[in-house]
């Protein structure tokens, strides 16, 4: 888990994404930076509209106009990928970066059998014949835990349950042995007992194949159980990043602390839940200075003027007045 030592697999630097609208440009991501080490699971957590899915979309190069990368860079294994031509990006997607989306029913083709979809993906990315690809597809289905894979491979997505479909989607993402998988809310559409099966599977695959995962979710519980490190996003910024235990047990940013305190506990019953009053600002009304200052109990006039940066430490918070003084190494 010593992410700072290994050279990063994915490196995102000062990424700004802007949507050009009729009333001028809207900045959806405002200088996002983070690294993912090989084989590491980075959780990206935040509330709706914080920009977490957008970050994932930008990394796999699926940003739709009018959204565009205004500045910053994305490097995969040292190679810059944010300015690649569409064709080159298409080759890279699926081969080196896999993707898992929230709804397994919409990410599978309803008119093709599961086997056909797997074989197509494998033959597109790897120099293998159909028969060999089918063997590999079968092996992948077994690996993601689909019972009776020999018969299931010739069935259509509608014949699978939600959890089984998500396993197929994971098998699809693994087809070409990518080094990075972007998983955008992979368990949100599933029941809790199935959710646990899927996160356990993701963790196991990550360990066995050495695949890194960028796990985008709004569910702090899923992050806590699955991720090695976590990046907390708020209004288009990473406000806190660090090892998952540290961020959860000793959050430095007041937003992270508020978020953690507002989750009801399964172990004890409290009379009153902590609540962060107000709501996340809209893109056209992001306050100057620290975007969180109107909702922050610790805000000083200074916070309204100067936007705090994210220090380059292993556990860092973008805050002028962090809650605990980070330990000096």
């Amino acid at each position, binding site marked *: 888990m010593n992410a700072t030592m290994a050279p990063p697999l994915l490196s995102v630097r000062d990424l700004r994404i802007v949507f050009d609208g009729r009333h001028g440009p809207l900045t959806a991501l405002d200088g996002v930076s983070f690294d993912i080490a090989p084989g590491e699971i980075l959780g990206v957590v935040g509330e709706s509209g914080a920009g977490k899915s957008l970050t994932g979309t930008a990394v796999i190069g699926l940003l739709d106009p009018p959204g565009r990368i205004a500045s910053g860079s994305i490097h995969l294994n040292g190679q810059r990928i944010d300015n690649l031509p569409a064709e080159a990006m298409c080759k890279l997607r699926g081969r080196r970066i896999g993707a898992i989306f929230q709804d397994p029913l919409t990410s599978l083709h309803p008119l093709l059998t599961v086997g056909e979809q797997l074989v197509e993906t494998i033959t597109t990315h790897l120099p293998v014949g159909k028969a060999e690809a089918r063997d590999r597809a079968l092996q992948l289905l077994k690996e993601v835990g689909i019972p009776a894979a020999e018969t299931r491979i010739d069935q259509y997505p509608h014949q699978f349950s939600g959890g089984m479909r998500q396993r197929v989607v994971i098998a699809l993402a693994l087809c070409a042995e990518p080094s990075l998988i972007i998983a955008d809310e992979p368990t949100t559409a599933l029941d809790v*007992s199935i959710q*646990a099966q899927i996160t*356990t599977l993701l963790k196991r695959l990550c360990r066995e194949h050495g695949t890194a995962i960028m796990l985008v979710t709004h569910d702090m*519980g899923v992050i*806590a159980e699955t991720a090695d490190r976590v990046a907390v996003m708020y209004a288009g910024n990473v406000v806190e990043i660090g090892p998952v235990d540290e961020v959860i047990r000793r959050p430095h940013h007041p937003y992270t602390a508020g978020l953690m305190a507002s989750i009801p*506990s399964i172990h004890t019953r409290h009379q009153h*839940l*902590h*609540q962060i009053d107000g*709501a996340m600002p809209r893109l056209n009304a992001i306050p100057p200075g620290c975007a969180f200052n109107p909702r922050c109990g610790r805000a000083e006039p200074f916070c309204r003027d100067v936007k705090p940066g994210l220090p380059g430490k292993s556990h860092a918070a973008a805050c002028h007045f962090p809650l605990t003084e980070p330990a000096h190494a």
Partner: protein
Amino acid sequence: MPEPSPILTVSAASCRFDVSPPALTRLLAHEPRRILRAVENISFTVERGTTFSIVGESGCGKSTLARMVVGLQRPTEGALHFHDIHRADGSFGPPRVQMIFQDPYASLNPRWRVGDVIAEPIRELRLRPDEAAVSQRVGDLLEIVGLSRGDAERYPHAFSGGQRQRISIARALATEADFLVCDEPTSALDVSVQAQILNLMVRLQKEFGLTYLFISHNLSVVRHMSDQLAIMYLGRFVESGPAETIFQRPRHPYTRLLLDTIPDVEQPNRQRKPMSGEVPSPIAPPPGCAFHPRCPIAVPNCSAVAPVLEALDERLVACHRAA
């Protein structure tokens, strides 16, 4: 707070849906009728001023049960009975029941101003004599749920998810409701907004002596809200009783597994054993105890004889192995 007295008694209620193909198809293919048993033989009592929660995975019948309680669905067998209550204003009669839905984006008419959305039940039930009194009441309700009087003039699209759920609550309270059925009221909301809505619901319950039937799949939210709790699996209650008793010492293996599998922010990177298998179809539930194919402690008897709810350790459990 009103005296604890039963407000709703559900006795042996069942709800079945006929999902058979058309008669001719069935005749030609020699297929039998197919019956979906959404709710099977459920009995419980809700005390006034308390929260009764129902927990279960999708397809377990919890929403069908909620729809039966508000009268959107008739029970196929059994009965639901609301007891007459004395209200603070001196009136006496059956409780007024309202529902709060899961999706605040789908449950508000986008073409109506918020003021009209809330005023509709007041006008329809003639709870106020004239328009001035109606708009006064709408303004009061908006303030009760933490919005401002001026919000009545705006349309639902101008509000965030949490604010819309506040509007839904104001609309439910507009009828001077005593009993609210809340079907996953916070599952479409972000956690910080969820905390605001849960706090609001707890405050309103204290202020107005409301009774909640709270449907959720989120166990930590349920622990925060509930007095009484029932765990549902494939249309039946498998465990029910005081919420704290069940959370502290779950006795049914399904309840235990549910508590074990939910992600826990207080124990990062915990190694957990996920529950294997999936919820079977309620059209063809497994014989005996419906949970036996997934149960880690099942014995041969479990696949033969369906267990019934029996009193054990201050709660009811339907399990051969619980004792």
